[in-house]
């Protein structure tokens, strides 16, 4: 196993970057050697998939990193039952290319298909169907975990149940996930029947969300520059699998952003113009058939879209707030953003359901979630995020560790009171930059 010194490992937000001692196992059998050797070279190490975590949860700055993308083989796929077992480095993109033509789809998908199965488990990712289907971990029957004290073990509700529950949402710290078995969802077609409905304010959003509960996929885009009576206006999008339309998978590729624009392309002027056009365009009232690729993964069409924010990168911030406080908290959050004059290009609002995750440190909670991103403008951006944090803390909510990379320790500990269980179960050879911040003594 060769360990390479890589000085430029980047998180998706491009704010956090730095040196790692990297190994790339080519088979599951090589994971143990990769963990030991990168940990020997860097003190500790961490499993790392396609690097879509925005902040510091997927990095181990100054330490080791085990890149799992070489573990990209399927192990077994039962076309009758939809049970799929595959290496942890297999991406949802790869799963879909095999599964869709046979009438199956991943049961839960985040907004990009370029995440690995291991990453999806470690972050217990959620998608547009959370209100009915729960998080990714709800559909995982078992997985393999390589631990420095026990070698490769199997985790499920029956075997090593404690590690099963702590690894789902466990940020890769309980061991390196080697393979994952999950139950796919039956589809009759690769197309969805989609309805896009503009709404004029936050009440409009919540009433649409309520009336759309039987739709398996719902999400809303919010215009964060709107103020006053128009606060919280946006476009509600809902979809359900079509019964006809063929089982054509997505096409690979798409254009790449060839360079990082020096000043970034996204600022309050461009976003303001975009927001007005976006809501006025005919697609804002689209009713009809749409392939799953543009419906679930609009941003995958421009690879490296994260470079649009320029060389300083950006902060993605996402909170979950409980049902009791969600309306008031969402209003205050949007008010705070609008008052700051800072523009969020991607502002996504969705209601979470009450399907419990098996994961101990799972992020979603019954209520609402708001995701925002801001170009990194240094202290101004950080103080805006701190103001948003306070709203979430008062509302009894929490922040998503996979996102901003500056989640304050106190905020994390309050949001995930069982974090000490994860620390107790952590593989001593594994560590992340995020976890170092969350566990260090003040």
């Amino acid at each position: 196993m060769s360990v390479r010194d890589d000085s430029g490992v980047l998180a998706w937000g491009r704010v956090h970057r730095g040196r790692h001692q990297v190994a790339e196992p080519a088979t599951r059998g090589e994971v143990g050697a990769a963990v030991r050797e990168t940990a020997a070279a860097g003190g500790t190490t961490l499993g790392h998939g396609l690097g879509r975590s925005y902040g510091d949860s997927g990095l181990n700055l100054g330490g080791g990193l085990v890149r799992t993308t070489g573990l990209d083989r399927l192990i077994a796929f039962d076309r009758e039952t939809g049970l799929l077992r595959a290496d942890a480095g297999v991406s949802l993109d790869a799963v879909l290319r095999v599964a869709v033509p046979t009438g199956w789809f991943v049961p839960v998908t985040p907004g990009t298909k370029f995440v690995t199965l291991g990453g999806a488990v470690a972050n217990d990712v959620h998608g547009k169907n959370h209100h009915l289907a729960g998080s990714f971990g709800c559909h995982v029957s078992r997985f393999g975990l390589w631990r420095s004290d026990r070698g490769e073990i199997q985790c499920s509700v029956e075997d090593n149940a404690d590690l099963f529950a702590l690894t789902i949402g466990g940020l890769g710290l309980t061991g390196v996930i080697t393979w994952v078995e999950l139950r796919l969802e039956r589809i009759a077609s690769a197309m969805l029947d989609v309805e896009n409905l503009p709404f004029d304010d936050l009440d409009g959003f919540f009433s649409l969300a309520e009336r759309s509960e039987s739709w398996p996929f719902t999400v809303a885009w919010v215009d964060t520059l709107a103020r006053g009576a128009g606060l919280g206006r946006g476009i509600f999008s809902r979809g359900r699998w079509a019964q006809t339309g063929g089982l054509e998978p997505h096409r690979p590729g798409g254009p790449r952003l060839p360079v990082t624009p020096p000043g970034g392309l996204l600022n309050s002027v461009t976003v303001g113009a975009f927001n007005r056009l976006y809501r006025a365009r005919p697609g804002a009232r689209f009713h009809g058939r749409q392939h799953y690729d543009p419906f679930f993964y609009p941003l995958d069409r421009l690879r490296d879209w994260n470079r649009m924010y320029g060389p300083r990168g950006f902060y993605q911030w996402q909170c979950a707030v409980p049902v009791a406080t969600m309306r008031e908290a969402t209003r205050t959050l949007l008010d705070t953003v609008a008052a700051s004059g800072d523009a969020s290009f991607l502002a996504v609002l969705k209601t979470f359901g009450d399907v419990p995750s098996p994961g101990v440190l799972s992020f979603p909670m019954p209520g609402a979630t708001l995701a925002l991103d801001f170009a990194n403008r240094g202290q101004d951006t950080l103080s805006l995020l701190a103001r948003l944090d306070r709203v979430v803390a008062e509302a009894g909510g929490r922040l998503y560790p996979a996102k901003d990379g500056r989640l304050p320790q106190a905020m994390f500990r309050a949001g995930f009171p069982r974090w000490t269980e994860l620390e107790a179960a952590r593989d001593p050879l594994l560590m992340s930059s995020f976890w170092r911040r969350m566990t260090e003594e003040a």
Partner: protein
Amino acid sequence: MATKRRILVLGATSAIAERWCRLRAAAGDTLLLVARDGEKLTAIADDLKARGAGEVHTATEDLADTDGADGRFSGWVQTLGGVDIVFLAYGILGDQAEAQRDTDALLRGVQANFTSAIVWCELAARAFDLAGAGTLVGISSVAGDRGRRTNYAYGAAKAGLSTYLEGMAHRFAGTEITVVCVKPGFVATPMTAHIDGRDGPLWATPEQVAEDIEKAVEKKKPEIYTRWFWRFVMLIIRHLPRPIFNKMKI
């Protein structure tokens, strides 16, 4: 391609071969995979089955060793029930400096990349000749296009393989037998994991190379460079005047 094909893959654990096999598995073909690393071979066979391959057989063998080659080859063909495509992908990059000071290492490289390879190629040709049809795909390298100080031991063996395949393509011109010589440039595989800058513009992924090969097989092209621009890169390198060429550290 509607009909299911029977494919013999020599060096099936190579990253390029594995990615190409995935394309064939999706089409439901039957494969026999040969390589040294039994554990990896099993993992690849499971993967190809899950992706929809018909049957997938494996044989854990050292292909650089040609002892009993005739019998071993016909055994594989028998297992497949006939063969439509032979895909030869194994090889070792080796280390030029080591080849210069260590005769055994030099010969090991030639044995793996050339001597043994042409034995399997000729056995494939015999099988196809008998059947009246078939496709042989050989993975050579752009390194064979001009001897360069940094890798001429590897380059010379690959040049020999390229010439051998070229001769075979000439021999079978106008028949139902196709011979494809593949010349990849830089490919980000475990074989090149030690090289820096693998995300540069000249580098390809094994998936891209596999797709290029698939197109060449469909179109029955006797020779392809992959990615395509290597044809022009090598055209220039081949025609660089010696005084300029000699100043280059390539």
